[in-house]
């Protein structure tokens, strides 16, 4: 967020510089750190009910941010990220059953998701667009059906996560909260760095003009696979967090397609193709979820209708309103400053 200008343009011209950060993003660093410290201290202030609700918020945030990177930047509309939520949750369960501390198993499970994503990507990347979406969904179904065949993992009815009995409930609640916060921060910073890197530049080029990008030698499949693996790690981390926070793993829940619905709604409401959008979307979605939870099926009818209307009439989501004024908290593109009357163009 505080990167120095990367290059200066022709020296004879009056101070025209290319910046990667914006005024807002530089000024936002300090408040962001303050917010972070406050969030980290919340378990000392709030009751356990509130922190466990916030764990669910962080899970939604992780899923929204990583899915947005997949669909909004790489153009990979996956309806099967629940495959990695399931793998992450069951990897934590499996390791815990073999004597691992669940909190230690969590990062291992997330990394394992990247390894599992390699062979899966070889299959699903053979299809494009909507067919890719359906294929990812099928893979998630296959994994769910295979998982319930293993009685040691609880079969279809699910099983409790061992290894957490020794904790005092309050301490366990705080640890779970901090684990969720750390995974959420890693997901956000990771997405930001990945999209600022060569991979992000390649994807932006492909999104803007596929043919031109290929003709200058952008290696599109490699960039897309990198993003797919990173998104798998994010979903796996979220899955591990679900296992730990619910102290129970059930295939119908962790492999459920409702997770894909949540991710898509978060990104559509917040705004696709920006890093800020899904953060805003996760906040709005979480608030709607909390307020409408008592109305049963109505909650998804209302949230789904809002998301569909946003997709049809407000393509850039809620963040699109802020973006209109050039506000960027996580600038991933390049912008020229000092050029009079040239509007900054961002990626």
């Amino acid at each position, binding site marked *: 967020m505080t990167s120095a200008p990367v290059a200066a343009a022709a020296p004879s011209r009056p101070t025209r510089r290319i910046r990667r950060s914006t005024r807002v993003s530089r000024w936002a660093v300090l408040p962001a750190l303050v917010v972070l410290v406050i969030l980290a201290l919340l378990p000392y202030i709030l009751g356990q009910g509130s922190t466990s609700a916030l764990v669910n918020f962080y899970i939604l945030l992780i899923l929204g941010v990583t899915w947005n990177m997949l669909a909004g930047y790489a153009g990979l509309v996956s309806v099967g990220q629940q495959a990695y939520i399931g793998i992450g949750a069951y990897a934590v369960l499996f390791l815990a059953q073999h004597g691992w501390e669940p909190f230690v198993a969590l990062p291992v499970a997330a990394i394992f998701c990247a390894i599992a994503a390699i062979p899966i990507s070889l299959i699903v990347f*053979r299809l494009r667009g*909507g067919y890719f979406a359906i*294929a990812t969904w099928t893979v998630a*179904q296959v994994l769910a059906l295979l998982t319930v065949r293993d009685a040691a993992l609880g079969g279809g009815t699910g099983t409790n996560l061992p290894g957490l009995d020794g904790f005092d409930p309050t301490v366990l609640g705080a640890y779970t909260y901090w684990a969720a916060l750390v995974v959420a921060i890693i997901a956000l910073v990771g997405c930001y760095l990945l999209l600022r890197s060569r991979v992000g530049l390649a994807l932006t080029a492909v999104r803007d003009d596929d043919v031109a990008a290929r003709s200058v030698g952008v290696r599109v499949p490699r960039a897309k696979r990198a993003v797919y693996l990173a998104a798998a790690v994010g979903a796996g981390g979220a899955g591990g967090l679900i296992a730990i926070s619910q102290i129970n793993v059930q295939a119908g829940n962790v492999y459920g397609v409702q997770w894909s619905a949540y991710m898509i709604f978060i990104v559509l409401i917040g705004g696709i193709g920006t890093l800020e959008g899904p953060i805003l979307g996760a906040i709005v979605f979480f608030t709607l979820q909390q307020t409408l939870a008592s109305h049963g099926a109505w909650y998804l009818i209302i949230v789904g209708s809002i998301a569909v209307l946003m997709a049809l009439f407000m393509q850039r989501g809620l963040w699109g309103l802020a973006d209109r004024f050039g506000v960027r908290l996580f600038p991933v593109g390049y912008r020229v400053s000092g050029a009079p009357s040239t509007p900054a163009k961002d990626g």
Partner: protein
Amino acid sequence: MIWVNAIVEGLLLGGLYALFACGLSLLFGVVGVINLAHGDLAVLGAYVAVAILPSTNTNALWALLFLPVIFAAFGYVSQRTVLQRSLDSGPLTTLLVTFGLSVVIQNALLEGFSADSHSLSVGSLTTSALHVNSTISISYLRLGILVVAIVVLAVVQLFLARTSTGRQIRAVADDGEAAAISGVNTRHVTGIAASIAFATVAVAGLAYGMYSQFTPTSGSSLLLFAFEAVIIGGLGSLWGTLAGGCVIGLAQTIGAQIDPTLGILMGHLVFLAILVVRPNGLIPARANA
């Protein structure tokens, strides 16, 4: 002999899946919409029949007279409003919009009809069967569904090949701009294609409701089976879709014969295996969305 029975059952099930896949294939091939709400629309059709038919004992075959007409009108309106609008904003938007609609339909059905399973009555047709010998029997209902699937596919094929509107639909599918220059009202024509697709969805939903019990969330797996049939059969070929449906149906019934819990898994695995072995023939030219 139980294996022969499984094969017969699989082929009959393939007819049902082909019926589902027909509308999906048509909507994608002509309109360019990958409809993730396809299965839920079919289930919606079955629930509309439950709601409209005077009692649960009324023969649901009566619904075949009016439901496809209602759905055809529904399809035309959807295409001219929601689907066209989402198409104008890019291929990703249609995916997101139809997925959102799928969730909305499922939860609206949950709210209206509860999570209990329903079924459509077809009177004595449910139990009557053609007994080939002591072990092999073919249910008239399932045989009828296969025949309906073949008839629907043949009629759609003939309509596209022989009629003036069918020619216009194919022209729009090949090159919408060129068709528009030649004087085709492309929006009206894609609307007609969508109404045909929706009418077949209504028939498929009714057939499914007669075939087995259904719940508001049954649509998701139907969508997957239909897609697998379309991809295995190859796009653009309606008869290939029938073959693809039969491959999935056979894999499921044979898998279930090995182990009752293996049926659906086997269908998915056969699909993924075909995807790995024959990828080149399976990627349709217009799918580079």
